[in-house]
């Protein structure tokens, strides 16, 4: 392993600073990797010319001693729901197939100003609705982790393209988005780090909306330190997003001190599910031991409302989605399918423009918001959400951080879990509670399943305490010493 695509963001920055290689060379190596890995279907749109242009500008800045940030010259993959000025943005949907935004999202603008080099726009579940990246209009993404059974596995979702790009060494970092686990679950399935900051840390302006009270941008990287470096260039207080929070921004990477002595780690007993594979439980126990060995104090805690988080989420998120996606009506932009009347044009456009999962969720949302059902479903769910938040707040009076598994299984084969939507929804059972409470959380690779697929460990902290998340995540990473590589890379070198 000595190729430029095998580096981390931190090592690349050091190499660029020392002049070991240029940003253009780094970009060229990654552009070649992206082109050679089209079988993974990780990208919807590749932007090699744009990448080289930005890499060249980065080299010029560095030559003048004026690198914009630690991300200057770093090649990244951007989920295709960030609006990018002049670059197609589809959100994985037919309805936006020909949409090219005339403006840049705040998060990608921040990354651009930090000097990051965008390699392209990554594949995703349509409108970020899915946990396996099998609902994209642009086809399934293939997980770079393969077993010798010849089956293609899902990379998780919805940020599956960014996960596959980072795991497959096509990019040093990926911008993802997380509504109920869409950064953390694919990170677990793909053997990388995925981090969702506190709701409000990153601006949602210019991100294609799924569920506005839950959507949050975050980094996907190969190390915890890289996640801290990349997050630094994504966050900002943005007047264009009224839920963006005016909060001081710490130096996230500086939080990686390895010192977690006397930190109290909550282990919520309700995350132990009936029928959960033994390997998930084993890794979780291992994680507890690792943190204990580093000087932390594990504390068993109880979060009794945990089991209600997922059904609550499946009222709240579809309700917000049905409202947000009402804008796709074929009138002003996007796909238009003609009909004999205006209503028929709407129905044809939306019937053909949206895939089955998006149609299903819009219909769930429409139903729970419809007259006569609003109180029974939507208001009920928002009350549950209050209880879930309060339960977290009370628990955090006694602990500093919580440790749970990220997902209840390793990556499954494409085609499995299709019969019953509820079975697919259960992928997010451990990630959704933190989403409903707006809490920061991270998935760190912990080890391999019995079959040899990656499994993640999940940490949750208090609002705006991302530093503790990175500090504890760094300790877990060091203890896990996860050096396994996806088998896809063996065929590449």
């Amino acid at each position, binding site marked *: 392993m000595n190729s430029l695509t095998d580096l981390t963001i931190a090592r690349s920055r050091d190499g660029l600073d020392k002049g070991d290689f240029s940003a253009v060379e780094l970009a060229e190596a990654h552009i070649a990797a992206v082109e050679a890995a089209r079988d993974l279907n990780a990208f919807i749109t590749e932007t090699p010319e744009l990448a080289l242009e930005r890499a060249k500008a980065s080299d010029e800045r560095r030559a003048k001693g004026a690198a914009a940030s630690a991300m200057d010259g770093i090649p990244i993959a951007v989920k295709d729901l960030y609006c990018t000025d002049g670059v197609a943005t589809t959100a994985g949907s037919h309805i936006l197939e*020909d*949409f*090219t935004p*005339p403006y840049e999202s705040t998060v990608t603008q921040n990354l651009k100003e930090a000097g990051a080099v965008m390699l392209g726009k990554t594949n995703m579940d349509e409108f970020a609705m899915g946990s396996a990246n099998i609902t994209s209009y642009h086809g399934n993404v293939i997980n770079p982790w393969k077993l010798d059974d010849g089956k293609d596995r899902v990379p998780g979702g919805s940020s599956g393209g960014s996960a596959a790009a980072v795991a497959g060494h096509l990019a040093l970092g990926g911008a993802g988005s997380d509504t109920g686990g869409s950064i953390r679950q694919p990170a677990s399935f793909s053997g990388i780090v995925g981090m969702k900051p*506190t*709701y*409000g840390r990153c601006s949602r302006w210019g991100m294609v909306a799924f569920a506005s*009270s839950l959507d949050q941008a975050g980094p996907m990287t190969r190390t915890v330190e890289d996640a801290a470096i990349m997050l630094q260039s994504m966050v900002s207080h943005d*007047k264009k997003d*009224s*839920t963006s*929070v005016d909060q001081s921004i710490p130096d996230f990477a500086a939080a990686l001190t390895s010192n977690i002595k006397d930190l109290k780690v909550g282990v919520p007993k309700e995350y132990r599910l009936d029928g959960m594979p033994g390997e998930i439980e084993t890794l979780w126990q291992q994680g507890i031991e690792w943190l204990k060995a580093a000087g932390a104090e594990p504390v068993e805690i109880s979060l009794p*409302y945990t*089991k*209600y988080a997922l*059904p*609550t989420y*499946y*009222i709240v998120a579809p309700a917000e989605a049905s409202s947000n996606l009402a804008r796709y*009506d*074929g*009138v*002003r*932009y*996007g796909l*238009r399918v*003609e009909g004999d009347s*205006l*209503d*028929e044009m*709407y*129905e*044809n456009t*939306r*019937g053909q423009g949206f895939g089955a999962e998006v*149609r*299903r969720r*819009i*219909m*769930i949302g*429409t*139903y729970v918001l*419809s007259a006569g059902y609003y109180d029974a479903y939507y*208001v*009920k*769910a*928002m*009350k*549950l*959400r*209050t*209880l879930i*938040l309060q339960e977290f707040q009370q628990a955090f009076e006694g602990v500093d951080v919580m440790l749970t598994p990220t997902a209840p299984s390793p990556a499954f084969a494409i085609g499995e879990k299709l019969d*019953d*939507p*509820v079975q697919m929804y259960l992928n997010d059972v451990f990630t959704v509670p933190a989403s*409903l*409470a*707006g809490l920061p959380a991270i998935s760190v690779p912990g080890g391999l399943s019995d079959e040899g697929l990656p499994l993640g460990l999940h940490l949750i902290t208090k*609002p705006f305490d991302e530093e503790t998340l990175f500090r504890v995540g760094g300790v877990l990473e060091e203890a896990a010493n996860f050096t396994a590589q996806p088998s896809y890379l063996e065929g590449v070198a």
Partner: protein
Amino acid sequence: MDKATVLNIAKLARIKVSESETENLAGELTNIFDWIEQLNEVNTDNVEPMTSVVAMAMPSRTDEVNDGADAERVLQNAPDRPADAQGNPLAFYVVPKVVE
């Protein structure tokens, strides 16, 4: 949830669903809502519905124009844009007929 309910929701959502899809959706949505029913186990009588996960005051700004006069960019993705005699796009787009 029966087929008539599914068709009504589809109409409210302005989504065309085929006959065969209606049948599947009725089954799937019934399963999903049966699963959601477990929320009724929780007594929420004296609980306030959540309005925001982060306690913050709603920001406000001065009511003044801070953007605009950019018709070309605004209309860039319009699906039906007429042109003048010289072939230059006009600064409006055609919407489907709304009034019969």
